[in-house]
Structure formats: C-alpha cells, structure tokens
C-alpha cells in the first residue's frame, strides 16, 4: 500500500508530499523524502517498553507503573523543569503546559537552544515575514544568512525557494538570484550567485553596514567590514533594493554566534529598511518539525513562546533566567521531565551534570544521551508515523500529521494526560 501526501515530521519544512510504501504494517519505502526523511521513516531502533531505573540496573515495566513513578517524582518537586517539546504533537504540548501550571514548574522548549534569540529579537522589533508559498511564487532574490539549507533543511530550496516553481516567475531558477552569507563555505554557498564570507562574529557589523548603505550613508563605511569588502556590500545592497521581492532566511549562524539576538534584531531592521524600497521579508529556518508549534501553543496558553516559570502560579518569562540551560547549570531545578528531545547531547557539560543529581523522566520513543540520566523512560508512538497530531511549519502554517501505521504505543498526549490525572488524584488525596 502507498500513502500519498504524507507529512514528514523531521524538520521545520514539514514537506507534505511524501509517498510512503507500507507492507505488512511496516514502512518499506519513502518517495520524495530527503535523506533525513528516509532515516526517520525507515528507522528501526526504538525503545519497546517503559523502563525504570532501580539502583544501577534498569528494568522494563508497564505503562501504568512508569506513569505512576513519573507522577511520584513530579508531585513533590519544588521546582520541576519541563523541557523539550519540539518533537511532539501540539496536543501533547498543551497538556504539558497544563501539567506545568498544575505543578508550579518551569517549562521551556528547545527553541531556547535554537531560535530563542530570534524570538527575543522579534520581541524588540517585530517580524516582517510571510508564508513559504509567498516566497515560492514571488521572490526573485533569496538570501540565506547563517544557514546551510542543503544540509539542515534539504528540500527547502527545491520546495519553497531557489528551485521551486513560481507563479510570477517564468523560469524561476534562472530569474532568481541567490545570496549566501556564512562564515564557511557550504554545500549551499556553492550554488549561490553571491557568497559573502564573514569573519566569525562579524555578522552584526555587516548588517549594520548594510542598513547604513541602504539608507544612503555609505560614505562612512570603511573599505572592509568583518572581512567583507565595501564594494561587495554595495553590490548586495543594490541587489536587494532592485529585487521585486526579496526573502531573507536566517539560521543558527546568527542566533548562536556572538551577539546572539542582536544579530537577528539587526537583520529585521535591515528588512524594515529594505521594505521602504521594495518588498522584503525575513524568516527563521526553524529546525525541529514542531518547534514552532511549541512556541505557538505555549504562547496562546501562557502568553510567552518559551522559558515560562509558573513557580508563583503566575507566568513569568525571562530568557537567560528561566531558560533550561541556566536552570540546569545553576542547579535551580529538583526534577526534570524531558519530552521528545535530548538535552544531554545538545547542552554544555555543566548543564548535563545536574541531570545526574536529580530525578529525570523521559518521554521519547528512542534511547538517546539523556537516557543515561533517566530514572523513568516512557516510549511513545512516533507522531507523523504512528500517531496523528498538529504541527506548525517554520512559517506558522499549521498542518495535521497523520498516523500511517498502527503501533501499540501510547501517544505523548496520552502519557502526559495520565501523569496529569495521577497527580490530580494524589493532590486530592492530601
């Protein structure tokens, strides 16, 4: 059997045109997918049953026991941290927020380690953006700044930008110009019309210089800015102004490098400035397939996209204080629940060390680095393969990922709901 128009739950592109071959209830083929999609849909390894750690040994158990143990850990915590959420369905994210509200914990999603700085910038200056189809149909200038779509989002260029069909472009590929800005050459920079190679940490200065040039203040700009020649900057500024529709995409090259969110702020303000000359938009290259969904769900429920502290019963938001990395390295939490992510692999060592000192609950289909620290791991159905659920594409378009094969696992939503119910019961008993 072949299922068509399947949505890929790997990266923020949420490509929805995959064809999946299913034989005897198992996935045997993936068409239209990139290498990452293939790995995801054809992946075999997974945790089959919930596990609980007892002393030095780990033993398999039933859902009920594991859920009970998780509830036990959480119900008495003084400052539990709930982290992850980018790899699960929106419905589970909502349950997670309710659980955190109930327990007075801190909830953060993985955007604090990817596009959190972009959110901080947006909160300062806004975000002139658009859906990806708008770019595909109109844009004659594409800029990728601090990202390498061919590796991070392998089909971004073919579905939405450089190689995509466009309503208002006769021969989209030839009519579109591509600019790549990065500190290193990448697969993506190899196909660019213009590659701007910046010295590491120099993005902010280059963005400032471009803003000044676009505003007609080029005379004060020195001959070279962070390793980029003034003549190249002028050329690029002209390309931007002359475009009918320019689309700037930026990645972690801006959010993770020096100056963090100020880089994004500067890029947004450059976009604002260019909007006075032509149509220009800016968009973040969101990584995980539903990290943007986590931001959306958290926002409508709590008012903030990530890093929300409910300790006082009132949501408090202050990235840099209420973000997972700080809470872990400052040892501020006394229990940790990780949902669909792997902080042990993706956080600095000092953050991981605290995980060894506190109880850790993990809800994830796969064993990963966090599993080394886990006291309870509960495997769940994989959303987009074994379970349906809502996901938000990197541009905010909500889609419903589909269940395409049956599995005996509970969904994230079910597991979190059951933990929630268990804690409610326990609280009622007191």
């Amino acid at each position: 059997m072949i299922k068509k128009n399947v949505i890929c739950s790997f990266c923020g592109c949420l490509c929805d045109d995959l064809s999946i071959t299913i034989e005897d209830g198992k996935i045997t083929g993936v068409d239209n997918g990139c290498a990452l999609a293939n790995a995801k849909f054809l992946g075999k390894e997974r945790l089959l049953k919930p596990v609980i750690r007892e002393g030095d040994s780990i033993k398999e158990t039933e859902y009920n026991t594991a859920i009970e143990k998780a509830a036990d850990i959480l119900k008495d915590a003084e400052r539990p941290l709930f982290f992850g959420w980018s790899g699960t369905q929106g419905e589970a994210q909502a349950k997670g927020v309710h659980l955190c509200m109930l327990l007075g914990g801190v909830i953060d999603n993985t955007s604090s380690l990817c596009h959190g700085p972009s959110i901080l910038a947006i909160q300062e200056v806004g975000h002139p953006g658009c859906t990806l189809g708008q770019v595909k149909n109109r844009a004659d200038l594409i800029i990728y700044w601090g990202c390498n779509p061919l590796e991070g989002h392998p089909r971004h260029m073919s579905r939405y930008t450089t190689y995509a069909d466009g309503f208002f472009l006769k021969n989209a590929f030839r009519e579109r110009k591509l600019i790549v800005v990065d500190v290193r050459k990448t697969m993506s920079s190899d196909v660019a019309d213009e590659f701007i190679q910046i010295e590491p940490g120099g993005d902010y200065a280059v963005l400032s210089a471009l803003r000044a040039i676009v505003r007609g203040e080029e005379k004060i700009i020195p001959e070279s800015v962070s390793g980029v020649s003034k003549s190249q900057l002028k050329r690029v500024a002209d390309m931007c102004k002359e475009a009918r529709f320019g689309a700037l995409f930026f990645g972690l090259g801006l959010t993770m490098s020096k100056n963090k969110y100020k880089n994004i702020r500067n890029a947004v303000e450059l976009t604002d400035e260019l909007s006075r000359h032509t149509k220009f938009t800016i968009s973040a290259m969101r990584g995980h397939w539903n990290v943007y969904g986590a931001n959306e769900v958290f926002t409508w429920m709590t008012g903030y996209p990530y890093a929300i502290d409910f300790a006082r019963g009132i949501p408090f938001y202050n990235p840099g204080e209420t973000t997972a990395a700080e809470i872990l390295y400052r040892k501020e939490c006394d229990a940790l629940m990780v949902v669909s992510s792997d902080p042990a692999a993706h956080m600095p060592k000092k953050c991981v060390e605290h995980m060894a000192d506190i109880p850790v609950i993990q809800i994830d289909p796969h064993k990963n680095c966090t599993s080394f620290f886990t006291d309870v791991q509960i495997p769940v159905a994989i959303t987009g393969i074994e379970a349906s659920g809502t996901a938000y594409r990197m541009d905010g378009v909500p889609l419903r990922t589909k269940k395409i094969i049956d599995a005996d696992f509970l969904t994230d939503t079910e597991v979190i709901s059951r933990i929630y119910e268990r804690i409610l019961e326990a609280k009622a008993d007191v």
Partner: protein
Amino acid sequence: MSELLIKNAYVIDPINDIKGEIMDIAIKDRMIADSVSDSAEVIDAKGCLTLPGGVDSHTHICGTKVNFGRYMSPEDMRAGRGRAQPHMYPVSGYSVPTVYANTYRYSALGYTTVLEGAMAPLEARHTHEEFFCTSLQDTMANTLFDGNWSVMEAVSDKDLKRVAAVVGWTLAAVKGFAVKVTNPGGTEMWGWGKDVGCIHQKIDHFGITPAEIIEYLIRANELLNLPHSVHLHCNNLGKPGNYKCTLETMQRTPNLNDKRQTLYMTHVQFHSYGGTKWGDFCSKADDIAWMLNRKPQIAIDMGQVMFGKTTTMTADGPMEFNLYRLYNNKWSNHDVELETGSGIIPVFYSRKNLVNSVMWSIGLELALMTKNPWQCMLATDNPNGAPFVKYPEIIALLMSSRYRDEEFAKIHPDTGKRVHLPSLDREMDFYEIAVMTRAAQAKALGITDIGKGHLGEGAYGDVAIYPIKNNDIDPSRDYSKIIEGFSLTDYTIKSGRVISRHGNCLLNGNNRTIWVKPKISEEYNMSNDPEFVKKFERYYSVSMENYPVEEEYMNKRNICIETETGL
C-alpha cells in the same frame, strides 16, 4: 436534564421586543423553555438588568496573527497577569491576552458568543485550535477572501458562479463562518509592497478592481445563502480623506436580502476620515452616518478607539506598514500565499494627540448619528481600537452626554474644530445598548435562527445578569455605576450553565464552533475542477489533501449550518 430558573429578572430582549419587564426565565437542558419543574436550580436576579448573552460580531482573539501579537509582546503580557484560581488557569496579557484571559474576561462582561474577525484559510487550523481553548464562548470565524487568487481569477472572468463555488468550497474546507474581505485587492498588491488607492484602482496581474471583488463576493454570498453577509474592511483604512472611498463603497451596495443587511462594514471609525493629510485631518462621521441612515442594507460596527496602550492587528498588511512608519515601533507582517496578508504593531492612543482625539470622537459620533441602533454595533475591533475590556466605558459614553463632555475636556484642545461630538446630546438607553451589544450582532450575523442573541423559547440559554437596577440609576449622571455594572456580571450563563459568577469562571463551558457548509452540486464542487486542483498543487506550498481542516478540530458540540445554494 439540567434545569435553571432565573427569577425576578428585569429583561430586555430586543429580538423578542421585550423592552424592560420583570419576568422569569426558564432554561431546560441548555435551551430557553416555557417552564421548568420545581426541582430546577433557582437564581434570583433581584430585579437586575438581564440581557441575552453578549455577542461580539468583530473581535480578534484567536489565530495566527493574534498569537503573533502575543508572541512579540512580553511587555503586554506582564500588564495583565493573574494567578490560577480553583477553576481558572493563570492568565497574562492586556491588549493581546492569552486564550484563557480572553475567555474569562469576555465572560465577566456577559459575552457568550464571539466572532473572530479574520482567519486566513491556509492557517485555519490554528484558529480552531485556539477556539478549542476559548472554552466559555461559542465561536465562529470570518474567513479571508480579499486576495484569493481563484476568486480574483473568477471575477476577472466575470464568472459569478465560480466565485461562489470557490468561496463555498473554501468555507466548508476550513470550517469558516463568513466571508471577510480586508482591503480587497490591497493585500495582493502588498505582496509586491504596494497598496490600492481606492475601489477603482486595478490590481496588478489580475486586472480587476476592489469594487469588482466586493460586488462579486456580495452576490456570491447571497447565491450561497450564507447566514451572514459579506464582512468588509474597506480599502484605505486609516488614511485622511478615506471617507470618500467608504461612501462610494456604501453607495454601490445593493439591497439583496430582506432578513439582514447585504453588507457588514467593520470598524467604520477608521474609514470616516476627512482632510487630505494628518494636518487637516477631521471627522466625516456625519457623511458616513447620513449614508448609513439611507441604506438599510448596510450594517456597521463602530471600531471605537479608546485611549491607552493597545496592539493593532489586521489582515491589512500595507496599512500596518504605514502605521509602523508613523510610530517607528516594532512591526510584524505575515503575508499568506494566494490568500491574504496581515500586520501587527503596538500603539498608544494618547489624549494629548490631536489625531487620536479625533479618532476617539469619530467612533462615538458614528454610533450617536446612526438613527437605527440595529445598524451600528458596539465594538472596538478588539484590540485595534482598544481591548474589549473597555466596552463598559463605551457603553457609558453612549449613555451619558455628561460623561462625554467631561472626557472631551481632557482631550486635545483643538479637537472641537474637527469633530461634531460636542453638538450631539443623544443619550442611549438600556434597550439601545442591548441592541448594539447582542441583538443587532446576532441578527447581522444571521444566528438568531439557531438561537443566539435572544431569549425566546428554543433559544440557547445564554443570559447575562448585570448588577444594575433600572430604577435606581440615572445613567446620564451615574455613568461610573454603568461602567462598573457592565464590567462584571453577577451571572453569565451559557447554554443554561453559569460560566461566570462575579468573574469566577467555570473551567469548561462546553463551547461550540459555528461554521457553514453550503450545499453545492458536484458540477460546482471545486475538488473536481481540474484547473483549480492543478493550480492548487502547483502554487500553494501544501497539497490540497492536507488543506482542509479535519473533524478532529471541531469539538463534538459544533454547529454546522448547511445552506441551500443556487449552485
């Protein structure tokens, strides 16, 4: 079966022509009934003002752009934080509050039904997800068609039936309620960073004009026999001199429906500006109201501006960019492929600012100069003119000329030369307020037949009891008591259940989503149209199969209004 008896209520129910009578209201199993048994729960209204649950016919509370307003505004969030209560989640936010804050605050004001003013079809799931959390109000969504390529192409072909077929298919696919048109053609032009001047300017590539889009959509709307009329946000919002564009749009509106208006024009305050630039900016509310008084086929809402901080958000992308350049504060924009756009910026309406003072006056003038209150709804285009929590103040302004005079004395001193407000001495009564805050809305939205906006037998048991006693109060003098009374109901009852008592809310009010599904023959079903399907697959960034909103996003109690169409 649950039963509830509200005794001793001072009832105003305009749709049933009840203009203030002490009576009992019986609710049986969610609906208003003739009588209930002795075992019914009893609420003693103690002679207080009792109205059908409030209906907001134009507000922005759910969906992509609202949520982006929240996302970009942590400073607004901390302006309205509240702790969790036994049956209430914690809340945040003032002008763009969280879903829970919205639903609780609307409940406290006595509102049980709200219409989200703008939903981009491509992002409809998002609106429905938030509707799900808006647990104490029944909700419906205006669906945006202002820049819909298939509509514009059909208009260009002068193919009315195709326009209707596209609208019908889309509404059913995204579970929308009505046709919303925001700056028709302007949002498509904004795709190139441009705008349209007025209704006769041609739109790039499609070669049609906003006037044609409006005209075809109005006729298609009637062809589909939709409960609500076309819901129009005119071109040129917020520009000095735009009243001419508004007047011409009104002038062109035919009278096609004897049950309700043919065109609903929203936040008309923003479209009633005279002058040529901000320097000679003035009110033209008199001209607009004059036209409205001669055109029963049009209904409007005020779009009242109130002073203070708020956030503006609209599908009108180019307008928001203009505002951004004026205020130089943060600016967000979100164009939606093949359909529409949107923009968001925070604003501060200041009493000291002449333009803001004139805007404030215009909204009130529109309401006071419109002879028939059924043609003018009370709304702020929440949160664009002001957050909806300001409604009680607006009610008081309409009921008390003394309050208006006192406020007028506090605004920019030059305002008097540019507006008509000081010369208006009309003071509205409770009946007119009841019309402007629920009855007219329900009628305009076409939801009286399904039991909304009134207290007749068989209607939903949606009731608001305000701590206001008609005999004890002179609204003209005691306007502060009016504000207080309309700010917090004693009881807000939805479908026969108390959802808010003195602002203490119920966790779950069994909310419903109301949507429409026009019955369309296979011949006109766009799913079978090869041209439509081909273009869809080629130019949208999602496949047609993944576009329609699934049943999972509807709660079980949803109300689907199926319409008989001419297709």
